[in-house]
């Protein structure tokens, strides 16, 4: 899947997250989270897993997390990727 345009998905409510995607030459992932210290690595692992599954090789990925569980991270990122790949 290719990130062809700038999009966002998700909300700023608690237990949710915002995903921002932008086209870029290289793949970069930045994560901001209210629980970064405790769960930063796990969030990163989940994000990497979803990106790999969708064969995303380039783009700027920014996550602002409000304590979302795995299923929500997966869903919001998937929604953002689908939006970014739309013609």
């Amino acid at each position, binding site marked *: 899947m290719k990130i062809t345009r700038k999009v966002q998905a998700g*909300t700023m409510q608690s237990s*949710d997250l915002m995903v921002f995607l932008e086209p870029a030459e290289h793949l970069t992932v930045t994560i901001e989270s209210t629980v970064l210290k405790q769960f930063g690595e796990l969030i990163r692992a989940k994000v990497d897993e979803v990106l790999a599954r969708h064969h995303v090789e380039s783009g700027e990925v920014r996550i602002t997390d409000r304590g979302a*569980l795995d299923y*929500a991270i*997966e869903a919001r990122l998937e929604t953002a990727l*689908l*939006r970014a790949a739309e013609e």
Partner: protein
Amino acid sequence: MGDFKLRRSLLYVPGNMPSMLQNIPIFNCDAVIIDLEDAVPMSEKDAARHLVKHFLMNYTERNKELLVRINPLDSKWGYEDLKVVLPALPDGIRLPKADTPEIVERLDTLLTEFEEELDLEIGRFRVLPSLESALAIINAVGIANSSQRIFALAFGAEDYTASMEIERTKGGEELFNARTRVLWAAKAAGIQAIDTIFADVNDMEGLKAETELAKRLGYTGKCLVNPRQIEVVHDVFAPKKEEVDYALQVIEAIQRARALGTGVISLKGKMVDAPVVKRAARVLRTAYAHGMVDTLIDEEAIHGAQ
């Protein structure tokens, strides 16, 4: 169709809010209706259906019935909702704007196609049609019989009053005919009837009064908009202790009658025969679900041995 499943409380949960979805396992309602329709803004329809899909896929130890309210089939989202959500195996679909039998038949056909594709038993996905317009009320009988998947009819008063161009009042007089017609259609088809939501979450007395009216008319459950409403609704639908005691006496009396070779007997000066026994059996089944009696009444006790 004849299955007895307790559906007193069907709680709406907005489909695009993780904080609410995550609470579904701990709500003590009988069913939830995850909403992709009115609770989700148009710009977030895609996001909500993916969130619901992933939530359901992770919610493996299910402890209540799970329905998803999709967008109407004639909208541009309805089909996509089914396509994304059905692989995550909800128990059924709440179909909004089920105005005609043909609309339900269309959903039935789509569900069969998805069941074939997903290699599931045909008929696995159940349907709860929403009767929420003047047209739907007129077509209630046809709708109730339009698919084997339908386990109940749901009355939707908010959209119904909008279609009638009238205000909805707390007394509910303006709903009376429609409410009754939905009931007749459901009862004649041998399925349950679910009453409309009560929107004022701070008015527990009003909720109680409306639920009592619905129960008295014959409704078996109610849709809810807030978890705080669950307890009030369960209390209303719970059989009273006197009702349970009387029902037990009725069953005992009819068994005595049968031993004497008759189908009718007097209990405290009142006649007990088949319809009285049937009503008693219903009270006892509900009481069993509430943990008020220890054993589930069997068919032989209701109808006698062949």
